[in-house]
């Protein structure tokens, strides 16, 4: 860990966004994760995305479970709401919070242990229910806090730091999320902010269950030859299918990728999700094809990244339940108790 707090001084040209905050205002406490942890890069990416979206920090709730990844919310958005839940139970708490106050932006931050092992069931159900959230799994393939045992997402055949090969089949979080009904599913890499920042921005703006599987190398226990979640391996095998150019009405950003055809996906709120195709044959709006391509890539040893599946007109939990527009936690006694006359009427209708 680091012994000093990050100095408050900043670059003289540091800008403020429309909400009146600088990027530094979205920082959290200084990270206590290992130096070089991919999770810290993802934290920085979330900070950048929230800054660019002009989000008011107090309108965000960040929820997490247990693990290295779940410690991470302390290290970004220091002015936002936070909840460290029981191991693997973050999806339930987030579902409840979302039901109580639909107006907040929900950011679920979890890891491969928290979501693919102890919380696997919860993970499946939060996707099924279509909770309006951005669910990020910081996926490093090992249990870092307990010194590097394989997690459920470690690829079969990949080798541990001690030299033992993994004999179990891995859980592919992207495939599970698509199968379970998530309406925005992407994969990225902590070492590629160019790709990850727009993906997170798009996920936050998606009105439904958005899931991002972000491969985040564990420098201490899973960044060695033989690992399939190391910086080097992911860089060598990264196959990006598209690039998100998600900007509401601003000029489009220039990309470092070779230009390809544009695909525009109209969103629920009238905004346009603009995708720059890097793989002409990939269509992220086709669920079956997306699943097939993800599986084929895995078989070929490729790490397919980008926005892999998106349902342009998603229905979220509140739409499914037909709740009122106002957050439930703002409803007061007169709203909730229609009075004797209404009760009498209801009773009469049942007699």
């Amino acid at each position, binding site marked *: 860990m680091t012994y000093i707090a990050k100095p408050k001084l900043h670059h003289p040209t540091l800008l403020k966004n429309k909400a009146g905050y600088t990027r530094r205002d979205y920082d959290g406490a200084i990270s206590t994760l290992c130096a070089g942890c991919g999770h810290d890069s993802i934290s920085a990416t979330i900070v950048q995305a929230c800054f660019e979206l002009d989000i008011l920090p107090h309108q965000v709730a960040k929820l997490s479970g247990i693990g290295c990844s779940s410690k991470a919310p302390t290290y970004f958005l220091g002015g936002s709401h936070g909840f460290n839940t029981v191991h693997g139970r973050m999806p339930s708490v987030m579902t409840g919070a979302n039901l109580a106050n639909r107006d907040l932006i929900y950011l679920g931050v979890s890891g491969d242990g928290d979501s693919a092992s102890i919380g696997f069931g919860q993970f499946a159900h939060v996707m099924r229910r279509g909770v309006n959230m951005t669910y990020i799994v910081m996926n490093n393939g090992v249990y870092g806090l307990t010194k590097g045992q394989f997690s459920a997402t470690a690829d079969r055949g990949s080798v541990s730091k001690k030299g033992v090969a993994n004999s179990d089949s891995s859980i592919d979080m992207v495939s599970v999320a698509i199968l379970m009904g998530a309406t925005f599913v992407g994969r990225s890499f902590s070492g590629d902010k160019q790709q990850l920042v727009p993906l997170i921005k798009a996920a936050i703006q998606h009105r439904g269950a958005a899931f991002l599987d972000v491969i985040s190398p564990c420098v201490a226990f899973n*960044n060695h030859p033989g690992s399939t979640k190391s910086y080097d391996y992911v860089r060598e095998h990264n196959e990006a299918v598209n690039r998100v150019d998600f900007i509401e009405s601003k000029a489009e950003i220039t990309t470092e990728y070779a230009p390809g055809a544009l695909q525009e996906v109209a969103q629920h709120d009238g905004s346009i999700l603009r995708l720059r195709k890097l793989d002409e044959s990939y269509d992220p709006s086709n669920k079956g094809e997306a699943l097939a391509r993800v599986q084929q890539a895995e078989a070929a040893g490729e790490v397919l990244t980008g926005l892999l599946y998106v349902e342009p007109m998603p229905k979220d939990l509140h739409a499914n339940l037909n709740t009122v527009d106002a957050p439930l936690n703002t409803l007061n006694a007169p709203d909730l108790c229609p009075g004797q006359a209404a009760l009498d009427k209801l009773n009469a209708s049942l007699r």
Partner: protein
Amino acid sequence: MKPTDIGNPDYFHKVVDCQWACPAHTPVPEYIRLIAHGRFSDAYMINWKSNVFPGILGRTCDRPCEPACRRTRVEDETMVKGKREPVAICRLKRVAADYKDDDILGRMPKAPAKNGKHIACVGGGPASLTVARDLAVLGYEITIYDQDPKLGGFIRTQIPHFRLPESVIDEEVGYITGIGNVNFVHKRIDSLKAVLAENYDAVFVGSGAPRGRELDVPGRKEAAANIHIGIDWLSSVSFGHISKVGKRVIVLGGGNTAMDCCRTARRLGGEDVKVIVRSGFEEMKASPWEKEDAMHEDIPIINFLVPKEVKHENGKIKGVLFEKVKAEYDAKGRRNLVPTGEPDPFYECDDVLVAIGQENAFPWIEKDAGVEFDKWGMPVVDEKTFGSTHPKVFFGGDAAFGPKNIIWAAAHGHEAAISIHALCSGGAVGLRPAPGVNIVSQKMGIHEWSYDNDISVVSRFKVPHRKKEEALKDIMAEVELGFDPDLAWKEAQRCLNCDVQTVFTDNLCIECDACVDICPMDCITFTANGDEKELRGRLNAPALNATQDLYVSGPLKTHRIMVKDEDVCLHCGLCAERCPTGAWDMRKYYVEMTHAEHACQTR
């Protein structure tokens, strides 16, 4: 861009802005750290080696280091609750001098056995004293000539004692004469040829710029009794020949001598003292703090007035008539002072002090002595070796290139001493020795450094001053009281330790971005290579200060390069703390100029 060559001693030296800006290249952050540790004697000795007069300079230096201080580029006014200001480097130097141990004399070098060479120094000011010190420790015998009864030159004669107590001069001159083999001869030199005839192995001319510029207006001669040339007047005050002045005094000129004149006048009976300057306030040559100190002593500074005539009656001065001017700039940006046409203001006075500049004067150097002069009457001096056209004659201080400051004189003295030593030991005079460089990792533990890397976010501390009423009563009472150790510690915390360098080893980097994410100043970028101008524009934060280098690595695994903008780096070490592979390391870069003592003459 090509990868940065950090093997070049100048690269990291430039990052230490204060040290790079100092003419003598004093290792500033190192001595500030020592002050923070209470190691005042060690801090003093670092200064003494480098600039020879720590106690004197700690009170009087014109501080070229301070405008260069990185602090002025990184402070946030709202955060520090004050202006962006440099570390009080100069006044911290004084702390080292004030609080050093009493037995500092024991650390001073002693002259070894004589080497049989004899050097003459003409003028007993800082340049000559530096030459004397650098050569005496090598066994040279030095003879210093000066027209004044004590050594010190300008330091002693023209800096008022309320700014620089004489005891400090005596002490620091004493450290040099105390080395041994340094002889002082109280004698005005009237002939260079006569000096050369005495068969010295080399002659160093450190005779300063001893002539105050004359005021050339009608009435000057008639009222001569009450018109004084500033530097001569200050010298007379210093030696006790003058002890009072009229109640109404006009000081002409806008430099530091003018500030010394007006403040001295306030202490010798001047009640209504004014400084009247041709130029605007901002363009005045005086250091900002000296102007502040003068104004604090109720001395108004009146600008844009050019003296036109001295009014007098029966040989007695009445006052000075001025012409009002304004500044106009031509197409080339040169300033012209043109009359505004307004009525000429008249200021009454009893005395006028003229401090409108100083000139070099070498009436004592014969035309056929072998020393060439240029058309402005200045000796032709080599800017590196300080040699003249006479192989045995060297110049330094104000005598070499006109009026500058003490710190420049010390820097010149070091270089001239190297040349003289080369001359006397059969080496090539033109060769300069490389600086001594020592670069050591500051890593103590996983996240622990041997320097205090936490950044202090406070504004500059003010040096306590004596109460004005008391200060004005006694011309010997020092106005500045200096930092006490407690304040000095607080001020020392503001230093960013710019000499603790961020050193990057490209083949260790795994491009995890940890350094980029943690850097509070957004200094670090991993990106595709390009040419410098284009690269500066597309970094994580634009690198707008072209005077500060970009630190560029060789190609990394992804074929990108690491680019670090040195401009606003806080040297907090967080990049190195967050680096999992030690690709970043914080290394203290101690660069020390080589003086004659260690010069191997082989660069």
